[in-house]
């Protein structure tokens, strides 16, 4: 489509289709400090990408740049055939990219129901069905629909955040550390639902600290190290040795 795509590696392309997301030479600065250097990758439709890396490697920054929360200082981002570089987050959201930010991606002062309504601010069609879908995925939310989101437990807040993405039909979901701080049982629930979304044709970029879990789920893997893409390839090729080299975390054993 554009000349910039030719410069990129094409390994992520499947079936010759244009990639859903293509990132070329992305750079991000927080004030004077540079957080991402020349990050390039592509994501085909219907694929799941695991983004791994140590603390401060730039994973969350990458997610924020893709969803427009932080403006890139260089590079190009194309999503679903259009250039979304430096577009506002609400424009990017309306284009079909949903970012579930790290931590609690909910409005604490709004009720559960209102949080879900905010999730539907863009997709107006058939709100009732969408709300029912959210409540059927996470029945606990239905019980608490009049409760303020800030008073939910951490796990329930994560569910609410995820529900806001799953009740609509986005093209791409970026899930930033969704399992952070969750009990293992709830981590399972999160992964189950991501799997269901995936089956419904949603592409997923997952940023995870549980590297093995994420790799077991994803098709492809991207490892960031100090703001640079250190390695990228099929998820099954990212073995222990590789993780140890780039993450250091715990895999030392």
């Amino acid at each position, binding site marked *: 489509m554009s000349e910039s795509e030719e410069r990129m590696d094409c390994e992520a392309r499947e079936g010759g289709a244009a990639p859903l997301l293509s990132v070329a030479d992305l750079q991000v600065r927080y004030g004077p400090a540079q957080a991402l250097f020349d990050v390039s990758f592509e994501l085909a439709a219907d694929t799941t990408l695991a983004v791994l890396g140590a603390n401060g490697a730039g994973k969350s920054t990458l997610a924020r740049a893709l969803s427009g929360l932080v403006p890139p200082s260089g590079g190009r981002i194309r999503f679903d055939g259009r250039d979304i570089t430096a577009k506002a987050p609400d424009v990017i959201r309306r284009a079909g990219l949903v970012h579930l930010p790290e931590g609690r*991606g909910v409005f604490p002062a709004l009720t559960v129901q209102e949080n879900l309504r905010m999730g539907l601010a863009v997709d107006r069609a058939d709100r009732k069905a969408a709300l029912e879908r959210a409540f059927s995925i996470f029945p606990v939310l239905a019980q608490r629909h009049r409760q303020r989101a800030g008073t939910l437990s951490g796990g329930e807040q994560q569910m609410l955040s995820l529900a806001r993405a799953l009740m609509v039909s986005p093209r791409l979901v970026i899930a930033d550390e969704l399992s952070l701080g969750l009990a293992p049982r709830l981590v399972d629930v999160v992964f189950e639902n991501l799997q269901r979304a995936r089956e419904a044709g949603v592409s997923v970029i997952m940023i995870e600290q549980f590297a093995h879990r994420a790799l077991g789920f994803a098709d492809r893997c991207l490892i960031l190290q100090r703001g640079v893409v250190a390695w990228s390839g099929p998820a099954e090729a990212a073995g222990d040795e590789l993780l140890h080299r780039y993450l250091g975390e715990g895999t030392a054993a």
Partner: protein
Amino acid sequence: MLQYLFAGLALGAIYAIASVALVATYVSSGVFNFALGSMAFTVARFYYFLNTESGWPILPSAVVSLGLFAPALGAVLYWLLFRHLRLRSPLIKVVATIGLSVALPPAVELVFGKLTNVTAPGLAPVPLKVFHPFGAAVNMDQIMTYLGLVVVLVLGIAVLQYTDLGLKVRALVDSEALTSLSGVNPTRVSLGVWAVSTVLTGLAGILLAPTAGLSVEGMTYLMAAAFAAVVAARLNGLATAVAVALAMGVVTTVIQRYLDPESALSAQIVPSIPFAFMLLALLYHAWRRRAGEPPAGGALDRAIRVAGGATGGPAPARRGLADPTLIASGVALLSVAALPLVLPEYWAGLTATGLALAIALLSYTLVTGEGGMIWLCQITFAGMGAVLSAELATYHGWPPLLAVFVGALLIVVVGAVIGLLTIRLGDLYVALVTLTFGLLVQTLLFTRDRFYNFGQGTAMPRPGFAEDTRVFSYLTLGTFLLLALLIVNLRRSTAGMAMRAVRWSEDGARTLGLSVVQMKLLVSALATYTAAVGGGFLAMNSQSSLPDSYNVFSGLVWLAVLVTVGSRSLMAALVAGLSFHLFPGVFQTYLPTGWAEVPVLLFGLGAVMVAKDPDGILAVHARQLRGLLARRGGGLPQPSGRPAQAALASGSPDSAVHQLTGGDR
């Protein structure tokens, strides 16, 4: 009694409407609107123009001013100014809205003409119908006021709770980042909030006009009362703000029942009631340790916020005497020093006043420029310095200079106490406490007959050797230089470094072993002393203490002018002080009288501009000049004239001067 209650509720309802507007804009866009009073005045003045001056009936006048003019005003101001403030430092937010409050009234007067008679009708037809429920009189204006509040509250709650629009507003208050991630454009929502709250502000202004008069002063008083209610509500609780506003209104009228309306005391107590409320609320919150700023937005909003504040880049290395910046500053100083010699008497007099003001402005350079604290009561310290030194000189026979320099030491105690009281408060609270303190001193102390003396104040002689204006100018300039030298020493000394350390990171400073309390006390004390000395010189200059000239709101203009020129540079204080007096002089002398307000308008606009360029115009000029030089490939501009002077004063290391010499070599 009931009658007082009715009147009090009406007053309280007006305060409440204004408080709602203040809270709405603060929680949705992070800007605490110091221009509330001016905006209320603007809308009320427009209503007066339609209803009284153009003879429109009440209903169309109200519909056009509140339905069209007010939202348009709010939207335009949001677009031009408030939109850019969200991520600015608290100082810039305060100064830019102060600038707006300074600039709006003269702009309105230029368009609609100056009002000589401030009595204005409200929303009820004149003559007012009067009812007598339970035997107490209630007039139609008061009923319109109750109605106004009820409509505002009912509509407000309905919209916020039950509509999609209200949901978006509440979402925005919770987290701007998350709102935009939900596909909602936060700018559009904020624009709406500003438009609506300007309608409320205007409504409060129109309702207030019949009782308090259609004047900037009256509206400013309304603003102060709304501040008090909002501070009591910790800046974000609508219900508390409305309740406190109503209580304040009732207390204000009921207390009058027990006061002798003729006594001087009641003339002082009644206007101080909102300030007393605010002080009590602040002390209560500080005692409960809840007077930090409520964090704007959620964790996500904080995480994506780019560290603001100081600009980066290489800092100036230590320079020798041959440094071009130093030489150039010297040249600039010499030309200022020549002014009293070359100017005729009238202008020399203005120069002397400007120099005395420059001393007082140095106090902002210290407390705000170095210490990073937003104090709005420096003019009050100056006033106290003026009053006290005049007392000492006239009634106790002290030599004038001794009275100024020793008297200022006594004022330092006051400044230190305020410094201690505000040490744990957030920036905005500090600004409000100091503003309140200033207003209290102004209404309770400066108006006492002994000090006030029908506005003349106490006589304050100049020193015997400096009775001539020229000699006095040099004395003042010398004092300015002495204080400036002390400040330079402070900046470069260990204490100066420690002070800046505390300013930029209290945790970092404390864990290094520095005492935050000591450093903040030091800067408070020094700034207070400087302000009080400046006040003493201003008094000597006018040979009287003139307590009226130390009005807190004039102090806001002082701050606006200083920050416009540059809050960190010593030369900026000199330039600001001189232009504050010389500039209006030019307008008065050479331009039609209708233009008399233009300088104030320009000062205000200047302060508004800091929203876009927080460094002040000296730095901006330096940057522009640098750009020009770069384009010209290092061509040599004239070494004299204002732009060059400006560049020198900016103190920026790679300022035009460096470029200049670079091109020279």
